[in-house]
């Protein structure tokens, strides 16, 4: 188990749990459901937002919020 903010660029992972309830609801309706595959594709400098690919579109969220998202790294896709 890892958190999304620590996921290196271009690594893929599965969403496990989103801790903040408000954040969870917002991300769920955008398609970030448990088990969904995500990939980090961009990072803004100085712990700015990070951009992820999810259900074939690009979504940006704040670094602090990414700390609240548990993920499971998908190893074989490296």
């Amino acid at each position, binding site marked *: 188990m890892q958190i999304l903010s620590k996921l290196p660029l271009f690594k893929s992972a599965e969403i496990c749990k989103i801790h*903040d*309830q*408000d*954040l*969870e*609801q*917002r*991300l*769920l*309706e*955008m*398609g970030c*459901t*448990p088990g969904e595959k995500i990939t980090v*594709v*961009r*990072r*803004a*400098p*100085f*712990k*700015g*937002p990070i*951009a992820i*690919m999810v*259900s*074939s*579109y*690009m*979504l*940006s*969220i*704040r670094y602090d*919020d990414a700390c609240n998202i548990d993920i499971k790294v998908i190893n074989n896709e490296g």
Partner: protein
Amino acid sequence: MMMHVILTSKLLTMKDSDINIVLAGNPNSGKTTLFNSLTGLKQKVGNYPGITVEKKTAKIVVNDFRSKLIDLPGIYSLYSKSIDEKVAQNVICNSYDSDYADVIVVIADASNLRRSIFLLTQIIDLKIPVVLALNMIDVASKKGVVINIDQLSSEMGIKVVAINARKARGLSKLKKAIIETNENASNETPTILDVNDVFGKIIKVINSIRNINNDYASFLSLCGYDMGNSIKQKVEISILSKNNEIIVERLQAKETVRRYKVIDKIISICVRNIEPKGKYKITKIIDDILIHPFFGYVIFLAILFLMFQAVFLWSKYPMDLIEGFFMNLSIWVAEILPSGVLNDLLVNGILAGIGGILVFIPQIALLFAFIAFLEDTGYMARVSFLTDKLLKGVGLNGRAIIPLLSGVGCAIPAIMSARTISSWKERIITIMVTPLMSCAARLPVYSVIINLIIPENVIFGFIELQGLVLMSFYLLGFISAMLIAFILKFIINTSKKSFFIMEMPSYKIPDWKTVIYTIIEKVKIFFFDAGKIIVAISVILWLLSSYGPGNNFQEIENRWVDKENAGKYIAAEKLEYSYAGIIGKTIEPVIKPLGFDWKIGISLITSIAAREAFVGTMSTIYSVGDDSVKTLENRMKSEINQETGKAFYTTAVGISLMLFYAFAMQCMSTIAIVYRETNSIKWPVIQFLYLTFLAYLSSFLAYQILS
């Protein structure tokens, strides 16, 4: 600042068309493009009654049916959070709304199907007749996403039509589907997610409270959304919710997860190769440059720089044309009409006023063209991404960059666009600082003064000095907006957390139609709404400056009698003793430390209504009593300071004047809109006071130091 029509709520007791067609969909799904393709220039832009969320409607004929097409703000689900989302949710859900749909068209980006049809399935479960318009299916299929439309249609029990909104393809099929769906509205459609299975008998209890058998509407009522329930029903539902220890967030989360499971099943049946190949290939290449951790910022600043250089440079030729045209028109009218009061009123009052506004249309059109262009390409979302960290530091949100940048056009729509910011605190701060961004109405003022005091030099071979000064005033507006936001961050308290969750759409070549419609719309608002006020002010001013109390004017003429070539002196003295002159003189002691005289004083007063009035006022004041037709610039150039005997408009006076206009809250419409948007008298008052203080202080300091 530009005036903006605030439409008073139109009470629609009777439906004025056969079918209400509501257009709903995610942001960036091509919804506006489809709306433009269906309506052309027939669209009307107003506001939702009582609030200022932009409402686009159009009366069109769809296969012989008179229809009203309503464009909703973009939403991802019916779980609304920001205020514009609430409007969309309310139109969809509240059957008492005058725009309540007979048929909803959900538009979905075919290469983004999973997320797009979430909203669709919610609407289906509300049992509202709905048609799915699958946009850009041709593009998606090229990238390997193969959608079986017939199967999708039968799985969801609705009509699905492939369209290309931009190329206006598939529209006649869509229209046919809308009409057929309307005619078969009574047919029962299958339920996508049965909330009874998930939440049990509580749904049926709410059905009986609401007296309607609509499970999903009852579920949304339980979650606290406005479904057109009466107060008694709302109270009963909230008691029920309390007794059952309902936590709304958990309820919604559970429902959302279950709904996506159903959607994933439908997609696995109907779509082959869900992952589009190379969809983001070009976007990735562009993003490598545009959101590069270093060059991204450099490029953003360069784009802004280019924008302001272009606004100044490209507008020069059309502006000269318009100015020349009005000069000739004035000369012609002055000659053709018998001289007298009417002639004077027409030439120096009305024509001077209209010419003064029309001349700035090229600049304003260019400015809005740039903003619309940047928004339509998808670049604005990148700017939000790049600036969120910085903006978060001063208590704002990456999303605030859109209100802030459109504030360069006009603060009114900019303040309205702050509605997409869901955090109350971030939204209030955005509203409070947006008027600091230099709006298009300041452009005429800056433009006149810069031409007056800054030489037309080119430095380093390519930078126009005038453009550079102009840009630094825009920069000044931005920096002070950041500083004030930072101060407000500590003053305004909230316990609620804020979020920045934003889709980054793939880049696209802008839809020129959308850009052009935006320009036409904004120029129209500027010309007609602001224009009306400016012409009215011009006429009143002409009256005030052409007449004086008692027999002031008679005395002046008597004094100069028998003197040759006295006309000019008579006119100057008359203006000084006219009503306008007296008003200006009264406030002169207050503004003298800023380097202003009573003539500028008059302009400051008329500018309280709207900043653009400055140029019109100056034109009128300087042309009263002057028989020769000249441009305002030449008139101001020849103005002499009575004390020093040198030119009145020195660099110190010019800079001081520009600073005053940079900060002062001289826009009644903005005050009105802030009042409405914040729903309190407190915020506009605070805003007015702090801006006036900043204006006076900075002008005072600038004049005292520079002179």
